């Protein structure tokens, strides 16, 4: 096992870059194997990057969101599954801060940093099969929850369940050791194959009082639901990373392997006038999406720093900006992962190259929630000054 320098604000980016380069080498193979991301999470732990967003006061690296999400992009360049897992993790490590008591905030930040805990979740509030029931001084949970991305390998596992007589879902976290949880091993999708987003069966799982988060509850301040917006921005960075990875691989293939077309009149594929044109198009759309997203990340960071003073109006306007970035990244990424093939040619469809994984991953993950409704929210804000409704997705 390699000895790794502990990450600091000075070197975390370089550590992530190295890790990404390591992951890219096995990406095609891991995509084919699908299954559990045990290896990936182990390497993330070793790298020390799991405490990236934990404030230095609690023993973490203390990066801002704007900095941390660039690392999501960096890892997604290698592999969309890792990007998603790591992005979710970063979000969840701040759950105590946003929705918890001050004791929870302190506890979760500190233990995450000290033990390099990996966080995962199955929050999806549209899935209502999980029931939570109070029992003495604790709770019991029974039922099924789907889309547990990375939960199987997580140290801290976050879920929502419904309690009779309570309108809003109850959000809680339990440690890996907690008994009664079984993975159903039903994640078999054509993209993001290495996220292991299984469903989980709960059998009388015990949940303690202090494992329940105060939220979601009818939001008394806008900050308590702000993580939903950050989650949208986090996905955007995964999309950007996948697209960047696709462009980089395509570029290498064109430079080394692709052949000139018979009527092109040029000696190398990299001289084909249309190939140059397509690469120009790919690059422009991707750079524009990245620039917009990075700009929006700054806005998100400022809003984050407003903490509980964030107003609903401010939250709504930030949401609109995040939606715009998400749409731009989705469009640019899908366009790129579809059309690179036209400049790569038939031989690039061989499975050994795995060029389809970029499209499969992006197509799968961009379906998380429909961008058309993000566009609608933007239009509704422009024309009718309405802010987006507050849901898990906005």
């Amino acid at each position, binding site marked *: 096992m390699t000895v790794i320098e502990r990450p600091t604000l000075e070197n975390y980016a370089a550590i992530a870059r190295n890790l990404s380069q390591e992951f890219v080498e096995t990406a095609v193979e891991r995509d084919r194997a699908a299954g559990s991301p045990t290896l990936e999470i182990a390497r993330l732990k070793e790298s020390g990057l799991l405490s990236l967003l934990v404030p230095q006061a609690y023993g973490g690296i203390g990066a801002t969101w704007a900095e941390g999400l660039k690392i999501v992009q960096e890892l997604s360049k290698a592999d969309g599954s890792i990007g998603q897992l790591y992005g979710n993790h970063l979000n969840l490590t701040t759950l105590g801060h946003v929705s918890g008591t001050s004791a929870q905030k302190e506890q979760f930040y500190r233990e995450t940093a000290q033990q390099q805990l990996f966080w995962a979740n199955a929050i999806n509030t549209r899935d209502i099969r999980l029931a939570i029931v109070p029992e003495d001084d604790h709770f019991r949970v029974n039922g099924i929850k789907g889309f547990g991305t990375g939960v199987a390998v997580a140290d801290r596992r976050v879920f929502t369940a419904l309690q009779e007589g309570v309108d809003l879902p109850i959000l809680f976290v339990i440690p890996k050791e907690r008994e009664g949880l079984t993975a159903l091993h039903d994640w078999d999708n*054509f993209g993001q194959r290495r996220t292991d987003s299984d469903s989980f069966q709960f059998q009388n799982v015990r949940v303690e009082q202090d494992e329940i988060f105060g939220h979601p509850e009818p939001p008394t301040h806008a900050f308590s639901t702000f993580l939903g917006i950050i989650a949208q921005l986090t996905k955007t960075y995964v999309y950007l990373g996948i697209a960047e990875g696709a462009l980089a691989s395509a570029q290498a293939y064109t430079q080394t392997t692709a052949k000139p077309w018979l009527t092109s009149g040029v000696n190398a594929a990299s001289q084909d006038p249309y190939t140059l044109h397509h690469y120009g198009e790919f690059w422009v759309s991707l750079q524009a999406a990245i620039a917009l997203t990075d700009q929006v990340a700054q806005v998100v960071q400022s809003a984050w720093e407003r903490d509980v003073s964030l107003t609903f109006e401010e939250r709504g306007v930030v949401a609109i900006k995040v939606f715009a970035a998400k749409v731009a990244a989705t469009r640019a990424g899908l366009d790129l992962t579809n059309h690179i093939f036209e400049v790569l040619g*038939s031989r690039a469809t061989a499975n050994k190259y795995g060029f389809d994984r970029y499209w499969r991953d992006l197509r799968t993950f961009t379906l998380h929630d429909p961008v058309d409704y993000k566009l609608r929210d933007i239009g509704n804000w422009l024309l009718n000054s309405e802010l987006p409704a507050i849901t898990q997705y906005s």
Partner: protein
Amino acid sequence: MTSLIDLGTRTKAHVIKDDQEAIAIAKELAAEFVKGDSDRDRHRRLPVEEINKYSESGLWGITVPKEYGGAFVSNVTLAEVTKIISEADSSIGQIPQNHLYIVESIRLDGNEEQKKFFFDLVLQGKRFGNAFSEIGTKSVVDVQTRLARSGDGYVLNGRKFYSTGALLADWIPVVAKNDDDNTVIAIVERSTPGLNVINDWSSFGQRATGSGTTIIENVQVPESHVIPQYRAFERPTTQGPVAQIIQAAVDVGIAKAALRDTLFYVRNYTRPWIDVELEHGYEDPLTLYNIGNVVIQVHAAEALLRRSGEYIDRANENPTDISVAEASIAVAEAKAIAAEASILASNKLLELAGTKATLEEYNLDRHWRNARTHTLHDPERWKYYAVGNFYLNGVNPPRHPWL
């Protein structure tokens, strides 16, 4: 040594008499083929039984000229049949592509004896495969396989990739350079010693085509089995456009399959999105908008496919420089728009269906994988070039099987 797969029990093919019958039979077969489509893709299973049914139906013989007993259907019909089968299973739709190419080659450049001999085999239901393309060469026209004079016959040596249909073929036509460096086609029976076909096709799409490698080592070929293919491109013939319209028809078939599955899935499974107060996903106005757009693009591709068939038919009646150029250009237009439509439809399928549609059990990504693989046969970007050059500068497109 020859690796042979069992082609099963086969009966003599039915002889189709006209265009109408061809289309009716294609529809019947399609209804059957569509059932196992997803399964064959998932397991990369060669459609042996299906291809037997397909060739026994007589559809592999519909382009044989009337004077040799065939129906000689129009190219509009040829495209329609290919489209119908490809919508059901685009691998099956693609497999006869090269068979039909060879029938056209024999019609154009075979001698009387060859026509009698091979057309009779075709009408009986015998199938041609393909060993055309090579790998590791400078470009697609750089052919390393050689057909060398040897006594009163020839000896053939080479290595071919992308041999779609060869595994299931009775005869394998091999493109080679002869001693004069002209491109010819040597038609070799599958059991000939020295011929070896390997199913090593590993692309992510068109998985059930078994388009693999053919190794040819010192194969003996009699003179009567060699077609002087180069002549098809020395004068104006429909060889190129016929090759291309079949390609375009496969792409349109893929687009139609994606649209079919979109309609089915969205109508039956897609939930309404939470931000809109609707009972059913299929009422969403944005979904309807997008589906309308896909329908229109797919219909535009179908309409240009039919139009290009009409151009080829006209060129067939009177093949001149200009009529053949017009046919080539019309087919290039159809192929370009078919590629766009198939990519659009296979992407929108998933966008409109939603996350659940990415489950492997539905296997709905196969349409994108098929579209993305098959549309790369020859690059779209140079189609636009050819069309532009023809309309702007009056330059006829080059004559080769890619236009």
